[in-house]
């Protein structure tokens, strides 16, 4: 029991003083955070806050310009290609648009990591593929092409592909984006099931508040490339920081500080103080 507890507290992702530039523009400024073993960490932030850039760092698609990113206790900046290859087999990623290969069927998409990284016989691979499809409620759809799936089905198929190798860490980029509330809610349920049933550490980038409140163990809020908040959902809700409250109530900073200027920007018209909407 003690061992289990310490294992849960153990960080599987450690980001220290991460700095990233695109050209001369600083996208991430001294970002530091940890993701603990077996938790669902939601990364939130407005557009341009740097959350997608942070996710690309965590997926090891880019190397830091300064600072360190440690995943499963290994510094990704110092990894050899072979070490990186080994690490990637332990990570799963479900991209925002699914990123399913359009020339392959759903089943072939999901089976691809098994074909490339294991020596399993085709029959076993097919059984594993069907199991994962069942887990994401897509059983029987393996013969369809990605173009024949709905948005929600594409996202679930992408999750099935991401978990086919039973990864230690699963990254999900905007899993609810563009989905209706019912499908979005079923995806949230799926994320919770993956954590509970498979013990995965899950990092979700989203701007959907409802989804965040439902699934997050902890939340990281990014603003203008800096960490604004890290904590539980309850702590987030009760936080007094104005920017966090703006984010939670979907208000822009302009709206808070200068309503007239905000309305002028929206309407292109001069609004006097007495004007009402």
């Amino acid at each position, binding site marked *: 029991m003690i061992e289990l507890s310490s294992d849960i507290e153990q960080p599987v992702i450690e980001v220290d003083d991460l700095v990233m530039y695109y050209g001369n523009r600083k996208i991430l400024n001294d970002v530091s955070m940890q993701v603990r073993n077996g938790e669902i960490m939601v990364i939130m932030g407005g557009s341009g806050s740097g959350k997608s850039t942070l996710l690309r760092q965590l*997926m090891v698609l880019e190397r830091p310009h300064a600072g360190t990113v440690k995943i499963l206790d290994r510094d990704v900046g110092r990894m050899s290609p072979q070490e990186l290859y080994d690490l990637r087999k332990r990570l799963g990623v479900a991209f925002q648009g699914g990123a399913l290969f*359009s020339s392959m069927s759903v089943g072939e998409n999901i089976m691809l990591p098994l074909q490339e990284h294991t020596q399993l016989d085709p029959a076993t691979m097919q059984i594993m593929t069907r199991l994962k499809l069942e887990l994401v409620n897509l059983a029987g759809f393996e013969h369809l092409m990605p173009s024949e799936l709905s948005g929600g089905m594409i996202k679930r198929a992408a999750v099935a592909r991401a978990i086919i190798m039973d990864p230690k860490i699963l990254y999900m980029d905007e899993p609810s984006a563009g989905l209706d509330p019912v499908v979005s809610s079923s995806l949230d349920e799926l994320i919770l099931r993956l954590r509970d049933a498979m013990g995965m550490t899950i990092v979700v980038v989203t701007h959907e508040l409802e989804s965040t409140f439902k699934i997050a163990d902890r939340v990281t809020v990014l603003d203008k490339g800096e960490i604004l908040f890290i904590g539980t959902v309850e702590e987030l809700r009760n936080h007094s920081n104005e920017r966090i409250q703006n984010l939670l109530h979907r208000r822009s900073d302009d709206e808070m500080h200068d309503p007239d200027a905000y309305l002028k920007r929206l309407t292109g018209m001069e609004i006097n103080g007495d004007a009402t909407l």
Partner: protein
Amino acid sequence: MEAPNATGSIVKAFDKLGRAVVSLVEEMGHGGILLWQCLYWFFAGPRLGQPVRLRLIMSQMMEIGVSALPIVIIMAATIGVMQAIQGIYALGLFGAESRVGIGIDLATVREFGPLITAILVAGRSGSALAARIGTMTINQEIDALNVMGINPVRYLVAPALLAMLIMVPALSLLSMYVGLLSAGLYVQADLGISLAAYTKEAMDILSVDDLMHGLSKSVIFAVLIALIGVINGASVTGGAEGVGRVTTRSVVQSISAIVFTDMVFAFIVTRI
């Protein structure tokens, strides 16, 4: 008032030229790196447990070679007949039309067979490769390959390159044969020279060197088509419109590179 404008225009023109040269050198460097990485995966892949998959090579060979058979045969036959028509006309000006075989045989094997085949493959498969890689880049499929630990060069580029290296010379060989045959049939119909006599003359004229000249060029063309397609596809920006742009660019660059390389190759081999 005019002088500063003129100076400004000259500076702009040089600026544009300089950027184009830098971009060209950059793309050539990128091509060299891609070629090196493909060779690395061909030879080191099996040892690392990440081989270039045979099924992907076969699939590309079907797409690049087998699917192109009808158009290559039709174009080769048409060009063979066209050469015969023009050759008979030109030589007929000084009564030497019976010697038309010499020109047709050498031109088809050394020049037209590989050139026409390469242009067709660039238009069909080079553009398809650019569009495929471009679309995959935009849809994050390349990122997906990377995060799954599947190197995109090993998975996408190396099979296409190897398939090109096998199928472009094979199609060129077919194109030479079909071109010579169609020209022979036309010569038989027009001049009454039998196909057997025409074939014997071709066998006497053509040497292994001529065949190797044509096939060596087709190997270089294969590398150019594959690398230009991949480089353009990987550089895509701006969604579906961007894919269209890089696809067109890939065809134009491939054909230009093929024709230019053909000229340089012919000069080096025949003059130096």
